[in-house]
C-alpha cells in the first residue's frame, strides 16, 4: 500500500524547522515587556500592541470577575494619543460637538463602555436611523407607545431613563450619528480584538457557538439536557443572559478558566459560569443567535426546513410525515389539519388534549402522569409549533 497524499505531506512537513531571524526575538522581548511600541510595520504594530495589551488586561479580567472594562485606556481620544497612533482619525466635528454637549454626561465618549447610559458603539448598525432620531427626541414616548426595541432597552436599563432632546435638528442628529458611525468603524478597524461591528461579531459568535454551545444545545430542538436557543435573546434580557450561572456547577463553587473551557470544546457545563468567558465573547454568541433567529423568522425556506426538522423530532414518531403517506402510524394524517382549525386551537389541543395517547410508555418520565401522556413539556415552545404549522401549510401547497 502506498501512502496517501496527506500522509506524504505530513511526513514531509511535520518536522520542518527553520531558524527565524533575530528580529523576531527582539520583537517578542519588546512585546512581552512593554506593549505599545514596536518597530517596523505600523499597522501590525498597532495590532500586536493591542493584542498584547488586551491580553494582559484580559487575564486581569479573568482574575477579577467584576473588573471595569479595560477598553477605556485603549481608546484613542484625540486629545490623548497613544504612541502608535500617529495618524489622527478625522471624525465629523459637528457631530462630536453635539455628542460632547448632550450625550457625554451619560454615554462613554469612547463608545464602548456602559456607563449611566449604554455604550453607543455600532448603534447605527443595530437600529434604523429614523428609530434613532425618534428615540433621541423622546425616549419616554416610544416606551409608552410600546415600541418593542424601546421597551427592551427600558427593561434592561430601568429605572434610569434617557433625557428627551426634542430640540435637536435633523442636521444635528445626522452629524451626531455620522460621528458615532465613523468612530465605531475606527474602533472596529484598529482594535478588532476588543470590539467588532455586528456582522463581524456574528461571525465570531458562530465560531464560539460551535465550540462552546453546540455540543449540548441546538438552535431549534430540545436536546437531552439543554433547551433550544431559538429566540433566546428575545425571551430573556441581556443582563439575565450575561449573568446566568449553571445552578449545579455554581453551587459547587467550581472555578474554571477560559483556556480549560476552550480546550474542552464545549464538553464542560454551561460556560459563562464564574465569569470565565469575557462579556464581549458572550455578547458575540448572543449576537449570532439573534441573527439565526431572524434568519428562521424571515426566510421562508429556512423556516420550512426548520419546521420539518422539528416535526420529525416532536411529531414524526406517531404522525405520518406528509410525503410518506404509505407508512402505518398510529396518529392521523396532519396534512390538512390547518384548514380545519385555527392555529390557536391547534396549539391548545396539542398541549392539553388527552386524545393523543397510546404511546405514553415510550415517553420520557416527565411527559407522563399516571401512565398518561402530558404534552405541555414536549410542546413548550410556541416557535416550534409555529414552525410545524408553517411546514404543514407549505406541504399542502
Amino acid at each position, binding site marked *: 500500500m502506498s501512502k496517501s497524499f496527506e500522509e506524504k505531506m*505530513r511526513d*514531509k*512537513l511535520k518536522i520542518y*524547522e527553520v531558524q527565524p531571524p533575530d528580529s*523576531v526575538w527582539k520583537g*517578542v522581548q519588546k512585546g512581552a515587556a512593554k506593549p505599545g511600541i514596536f518597530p517596523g510595520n505600523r499597522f501590525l504594530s498597532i495590532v500586536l500592541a493591542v493584542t*498584547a495589551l488586551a491580553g494582559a488586561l484580559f*487575564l486581569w479580567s479573568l482574575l477579577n470577575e467584576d473588573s471595569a472594562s479595560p477598553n477605556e485606556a485603549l481608546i484613542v481620544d484625540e486629545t490623548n494619543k497613544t504612541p502608535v497612533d500617529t495618524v489622527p482619525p478625522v471624525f465629523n466635528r459637528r457631530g462630536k460637538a453635539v455628542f460632547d454637549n448632550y450625550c457625554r454626561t451619560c454615554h462613554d465618549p469612547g463608545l464602548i463602555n456602559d456607563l449611566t447610559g449604554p455604550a453607543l458603539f455600532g448603534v447605527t448598525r443595530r437600529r434604523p436611523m429614523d428609530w434613532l432620531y425618534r428615540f433621541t427626541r423622546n425616549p419616554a414616548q416610544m416606551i409608552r407607545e410600546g415600541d418593542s426595541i424601546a421597551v427592551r432597552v427600558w427593561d434592561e436599563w430601568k429605572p434610569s431613563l434617557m433625557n428627551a432632546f426634542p430640540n435637536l435638528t435633523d442636521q444635528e442628529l445626522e452629524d451626531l450619528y455620522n460621528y458615532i458611525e465613523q468612530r465605531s468603524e475606527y474602533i472596529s478597524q484598529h482594535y478588532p480584538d476588543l470590539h467588532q461591528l455586528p456582522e463581524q461579531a456574528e461571525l465570531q459568535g458562530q465560531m464560539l457557538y460551535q465550540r462552546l454551545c453546540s455540543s449540548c444545545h441546538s438552535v431549534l430542538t430540545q436536546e437531552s439536557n439543554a433547551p433550544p436557543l431559538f429566540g433566546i435573546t428575545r425571551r430573556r434580557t441581556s443582563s439575565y443572559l450575561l449573568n446566568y450561572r449553571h445552578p449545579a456547577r455554581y453551587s459547587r463553587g467550581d472555578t474554571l478558566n477560559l483556556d480549560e473551557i476552550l480546550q474542552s470544546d464545549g464538553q464542560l457545563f454551561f460556560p459563562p459560569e464564574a465569569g470565565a468567558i469575557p462579556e464581549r465573547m458572550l455578547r458575540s454568541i448572543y449576537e449570532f443567535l439573534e441573527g439565526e433567529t431572524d434568519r428562521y423568522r424571515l426566510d421562508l425556506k429556512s423556516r420550512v426546513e426548520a419546521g420539518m426538522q422539528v416535526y420529525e423530532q416532536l411529531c414524526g414518531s406517531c404522525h405520518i410525515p406528509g410525503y410518506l403517506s404509505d407508512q402505518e402510524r398510529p396518529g392521523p394524517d396532519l396534512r390538512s389539519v390547518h384548514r380545519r382549525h385555527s392555529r390557536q386551537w391547534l396549539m391548545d389541543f396539542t398541549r392539553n388534549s388527552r386524545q393523543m395517547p397510546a404511546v405514553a410508555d415510550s415517553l420520557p418520565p416527565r411527559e407522563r402522569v399516571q401512565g398518561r401522556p402530558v404534552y405541555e413539556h414536549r410542546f413548550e415552545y410556541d416557535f416550534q409549533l409555529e414552525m410545524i404549522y408553517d411546514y404543514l401549510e407549505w406541504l399542502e401547497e
Partner: protein
Amino acid sequence: MKHPEQDQLLRKCLAGKPSAQRRFYERYAPRLYGVCLRYARTETEAQDYLQEAFIRIFRDLNQFRGEGSLEGWLRRITVRTALGALRKERLEFPAEMEAFFNHPASEPTALEALQARDIAAIIRQLPSGYRAVFNLYAIEGYRHAEIAGMLGISEGASRSQYARARKALQNLLTEPENSRRHE
C-alpha cells in the same frame, strides 16, 4: 511528567528568568516558524505571526497545565494566531486557482524529490482560504467540522475547498506512480 528538563525550563520561564525565556524561545522557535511559514503568504508575514505567537505564549504560559504535550500546546497557539491574522484580512477562495501559482506552466515535480522548504513555499502560493484549510486538514489533522468552526465557514465548504486545494497542489506535485500529465 517525564521531561524533568522541560519542566525546569518552564518553571524558570514562569519565574521570569530572561535567560530561560531565551532558551525556551531558541528551543521551540525553529519548529513554530516552520508552522508559520505554511500559513503566511510571505516570510515577513510568517515572522510577524511567530512574534505574535511567542508574545501570547509567554503571556499564557501559566495556563499550560502539563496535560498533553507542550509542543502540541505551542503549535495550537501558533496556528490560532496565524488563523486570527488570516481571518482579519478575510479568507479568499477564488474560483480560478491555477492563476495564483507563479509558474503554472512549469513541469510538475515529484513530491518525493522535494524538500520541506520547497513544499512550504508552494503552499504559501495558495490563496489564503485554501492555504488555511489545507494546512489544518492535511498537516495539522483537524476534522472538517472543527475547521468549519475555526474558520467560520460551513463544514461542506471546508470539505469542498479542501478538495480543490488538494487538487491544485497535486497538479504541481505529481506523484510518480500516478503521473497524469496534461500534454
